[in-house]
């Protein structure tokens, strides 16, 4: 048998049929559902009088529209409220598992899946959300789908797909002290570009990757979509298995042993061939900050904002100039001289307990700069929030001048009331710095939680490695 990549193995286990024209039907194990991309799918099902194929595969949660403040009032925006109520109705009608608002398990869909053990190694995981790539951290084949495909999975438990190519990104060696998964993934995107992974599933390997916690691996895989890849994967090791043990949806007893035995086979064969290989030297990675309107527009903290005049490709140079104009930045500005208005620590990229600990370690005993209009922390789930409060992290943030909010997607995409006003500049731990993403005219700089926390204290970007950290 020819050597297989991890992607090849998971794919093979799920291929239901293959037609002569190369079209394949892939079986889906876990279907995560949220309020934004599912209503039209449920409606389509109803119109066609179709049943849900496997209700057990579904875990639903409202996250994009939920307010992060004043929950006792419910959702005041009637349009948002209707969308969440529609999800509730659909889940009630079909008797699907849903963590409704007010349930401590409610949170961002990509936080709660792993937290519950609903994402397991070797699974295929889909959700009507591009950041479904997050779950690849568990050696699960996980990717975002559109609403028509949500309906397709609801009705058939399968998707019609073409297989992607295999790409491997090796991060050689260990990262320096103070460098996080966010810095690693931003650096990778800077290197290969936002379309660098198009048509591929990327497997991340190397010492720097193996050293990451599951939280770090989720941050890494979460942003694989920002490199254009269909999915990201990290193989299953002891870190994965230890994380999963005892979680509510994880197997127990004899099934646990059987599962672990299988999961331990979930890695690429030593001689597997990848269509594309990229190597990154871990030691060269510094804290990363995006300067533009695409995640590939990224520099390290000790660099200057680039100059479009130095780019020879006309289209790229034009794109850089557009980005500088939108961001209100001059070419060659030192990164450390970029001043912020707001700070957002949250999102499916960076709102797990480890992220909050890292930010709190920077913030402890310090105050948010007077020039910062708003600094907010939005935990990824009710359980993350509870854990953080048990550890006293909430007090650290509040004493420093941060707002401590309720879980949800919040200002990552500003579908609720949390947003940037035109011209406001934000250090954000989220995943997209697109024009208008965090609010029309808003300017987003993507960074790690520790870098966002440091920027909150100083009012501008600083190299977090130079600060004393209280951890």
């Amino acid at each position: 048998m020819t050597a297989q990549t991890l992607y090849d193995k998971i794919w093979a286990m799920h291929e239901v049929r293959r037609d002569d024209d190369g079209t394949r039907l892939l079986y889906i194990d876990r279907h995560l559902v949220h309020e934004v991309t599912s209503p039209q799918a449920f409606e389509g099902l109803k119109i066609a009088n179709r049943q849900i194929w496997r209700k057990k595969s579904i875990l639903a949660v409202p996250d994009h529209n939920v307010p992060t403040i004043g929950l006792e009032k419910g959702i005041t925006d009637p349009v948002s409220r209707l969308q969440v109520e529609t999800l509730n109705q659909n889940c009630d009608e079909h008797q699907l598992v849903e963590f409704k608002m007010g349930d401590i398990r409610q949170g961002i869909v990509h936080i709660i899946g792993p937290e519950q053990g609903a994402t397991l190694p070797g699974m295929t995981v889909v959700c009507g959300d591009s950041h479904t790539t997050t779950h690849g951290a568990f050696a699960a084949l996980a990717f975002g789908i559109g609403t028509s495909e949500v309906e397709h999975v609801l009705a058939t438990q399968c998707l019609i797909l073409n297989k992607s190519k295999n790409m491997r990104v090796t991060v050689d060696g260990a990262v320096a002290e103070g460098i996080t998964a966010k810095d690693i993934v931003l650096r990778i995107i800077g290197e290969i570009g936002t379309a660098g992974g198009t048509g591929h599933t990327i497997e991340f390997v190397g010492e720097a990757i193996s050293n990451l916690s599951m939280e770090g691996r989720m941050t890494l895989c979460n942003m694989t979509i920002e490199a254009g890849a269909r999915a990201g994967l990290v193989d299953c090791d002891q870190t994965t298995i230890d994380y999963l043990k005892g979680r509510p949806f994880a197997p127990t007893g004899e099934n646990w042993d059987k599962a672990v035995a299988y999961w331990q086979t979930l890695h690429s064969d030593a001689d597997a061939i990848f269509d594309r290989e990229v190597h990154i030297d871990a030691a060269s990675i510094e804290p990363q900050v995006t300067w533009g309107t695409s995640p590939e527009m990224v520099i390290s903290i000790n660099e200057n904002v680039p100059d479009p005049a130095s780019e020879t490709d006309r289209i790229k140079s034009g794109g850089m100039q557009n980005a500088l104009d939108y961001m209100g930045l001059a070419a060659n500005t030192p990164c450390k001289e970029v001043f912020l208005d707001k700070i957002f620590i949250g999102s499916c990229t960076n709102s797990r307990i480890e992220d909050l600990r890292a930010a709190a370690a920077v913030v402890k005993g310090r105050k948010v700069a007077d020039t910062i209009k708003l600094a907010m922390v939005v935990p990824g789930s009710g359980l993350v929030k509870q854990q953080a409060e048990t550890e006293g992290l909430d007090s650290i943030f509040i004493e420093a001048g941060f707002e401590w909010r309720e879980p949800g997607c919040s200002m990552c995409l500003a579908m609720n009331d949390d947003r940037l006003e035109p011209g406001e500049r934000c250090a954000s731990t989220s995943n997209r710095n697109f024009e208008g993403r965090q609010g029309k005219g808003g300017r987003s700089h993507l960074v790690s939680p520790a870098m966002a926390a440091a920027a909150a204290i100083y009012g501008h970007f600083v190299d977090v490695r130079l600060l004393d950290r209280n951890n």
Partner: protein
Amino acid sequence: MEKFKKFSGIVAAIDRPNVDTDAIIPKQYLKSIKRTGFGVNLFDDWRYLDPGAPGESNAERRINPDFVLNKTPYDHAQILLGRENFACGSSREHAVWALMEFGFKVVIAPSFADIFYNNSFKNGLLPIVLSPTLVDQLFAELEQQQDYRLDVDLENQLVTNAVGFEMPFEIEDFRKYCLLNGFDDIELTMQHADHIKAFEAQYYKKFPWL
């Protein structure tokens, strides 16, 4: 889904790489629980000078006179010409719904983001990948001629300009078959229901914890 037929349409161009789905249809409009109503908010941040909100009329909003889709004849364009990595970002199918409701039937670019590319076919929008050189050529021709048109022939996989220059494009057989016939994917997959059940029987025996 409507059958995709051969047509000739006005081409509008957006000359920037990495046009993302947040630009195509901003997040506030995703609050709708319907599949329709997105066309008026296509490229909302670029198209209007005032902010907009879902469910509110756009009649009072000042339009951006410089934005291509606000100019004649591009306000009834059916073909959109874009650059690399078109429609990257979020999985929102609303981006496809908005483009189609505006009147677009085809998007031509050197590359597309995967999820958007998939979503397009599910709705009858045809994304066509042409080489960067050909796309450059189309941009240049469009600059010369205001009511620039292209013919799109899916059956023969050809894009043809006014002087008869033919640009062949690739498309997977299954996708082409579905578009030409207006077939619904789910219906096709349901024909394999027994196959899926047989798969499940052996699958859950092997992985009893799932």
